[in-house]
Structures are given as structure tokens and as C-alpha cells.
């Protein structure tokens, strides 16, 4: 059996066990979950790339993000 055959057997079983009303519904949910996984993966890569660019441009070379955040809290309470 191929991987695809195994997947179809598993999907049929999920339908038989009542998790989904039909194979179509099971496949639709599987596709939705797969696309979500890819979107999360893409977001993770984008965030890594942005962090990389921020590091290269040196915005936090002298002071860390956390230090600047603490300074902002202090400044915003100054009269």
C-alpha cells in the first residue's frame, strides 16, 4: 500500500467512527489544518528574518529592547 492508500484507510476509519460525517468533510478539515501549519511555518520564518534584519541594522546594539522598554515606562510617568 502507498502512503496515500494508508491515508485513505485512516480517513475512512475516522468517518466510520463518527468523527466526520463524510470523507469530503474529513478531507476538508485535513486541508484546513495543513494550510494552517504552513501559514504558521511561514510566519515563524518571517519573524526570524525580521529579527535578523533588526540585528544587522543595529537598533539594539547599545541598549536591549527590554532596557528601552523600562526607560519608556519611566519617561511616560515623568511630569
Amino acid at each position, binding site marked *: 500500500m502507498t502512503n496515500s492508500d494508508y491515508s485513505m484507510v485512516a480517513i475512512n476509519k475516522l468517518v466510520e467512527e463518527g468523527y466526520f460525517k463524510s470523507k469530503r468533510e474529513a478531507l476538508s478539515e485535513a486541508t484546513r489544518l495543513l494550510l*494552517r501549519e504552513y501559514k504558521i511555518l511561514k510566519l515563524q520564518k518571517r519573524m526570524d528574518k525580521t529579527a535578523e534584519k533588526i*540585528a544587522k541594522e543595529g*537598533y*539594539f546594539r547599545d541598549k536591549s*529592547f*527590554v532596557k*528601552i522598554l523600562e526607560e519608556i*515606562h519611566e519617561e511616560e510617568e515623568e511630569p
Partner: protein
Amino acid sequence: MRLCLDSSIVGKKYDKLEEDYQLADELFSKVMKNEFEEVFWSKWLILEVLRVCVKKNFKKQRVDEVRDEIEEFLAMDLVKEKQITDDVVNLAKTLIVNLNIYAADAVHLATAILSNSNVLLSEDEHLNKKKVKDFASKFGLEIKRLKEFL
């Protein structure tokens, strides 16, 4: 586990020069894999993160990238953004009076308490003071730094 994050944690994810950057990276990977029951942050968070970006003169494109990524995080329901309701403000007032903490820190702490979080992750030194941690523990909330959590 119900987890609340403050701005310092999200900021660490964008600050690769920070010593604990890898820990922030690891935390975000876990959030993206849905390893926690629920993750929250306050609506105030994005304003603080953007304020830091602008204060450090980020180029506009970079500010837009950070904003878009945080908003996509929410759109994908990886984190629930908590509104700054009257309840949050009222509890924050009590926290300011009792603990002498900054308004922004009080909003994050009130958000963590009212969302019934088990842990508030923060790298802010004021939120990590003993008296603040002791007070939070009365609500079943632990305040931890990344290195204490992961």
C-alpha cells in the same frame, strides 16, 4: 497551562543580540505548536512594542513588519489578546497603589490575573521584584523570567 506574556517577551523575540534570545525563540516555537492550553497578552502590548521600535528609529518598513507579524499571530489565534476593560483598569489601580509599579506593568499584571493565567512571563525587573511576585501568588499566578520557565 495558561500563560500570559508581556511586551518584554515579544521584544526579546526581535532582539537577537539579547543573551536570552534563544529562549524567546524556543518559547515562540512552543506557542506556535500549541503546547500551552492558552496564551494571552494585553492589547497594550502592541503599542509598547511599536513605541520601542519608533524610539529606536526603526525604518518604517521594519516597524510595519513587526506590527504585521504580531497582528498575524493574533489572527491565527495563537494568542488571545485581552481588552483593557474597566475590570483591568480597576485592578491595575489597586496594583499601582499597593505595589508602586508603573501603569504599563500594572496593566500586564492585571491582565494576567483576570485571564486566570498560571504564569506571567516577563523580563521586566519591576515585575520580577519579590513583593510583586508575592502579591501575584495570592491569585495563583507566578511571575517568571524566560530562563526560570524554560
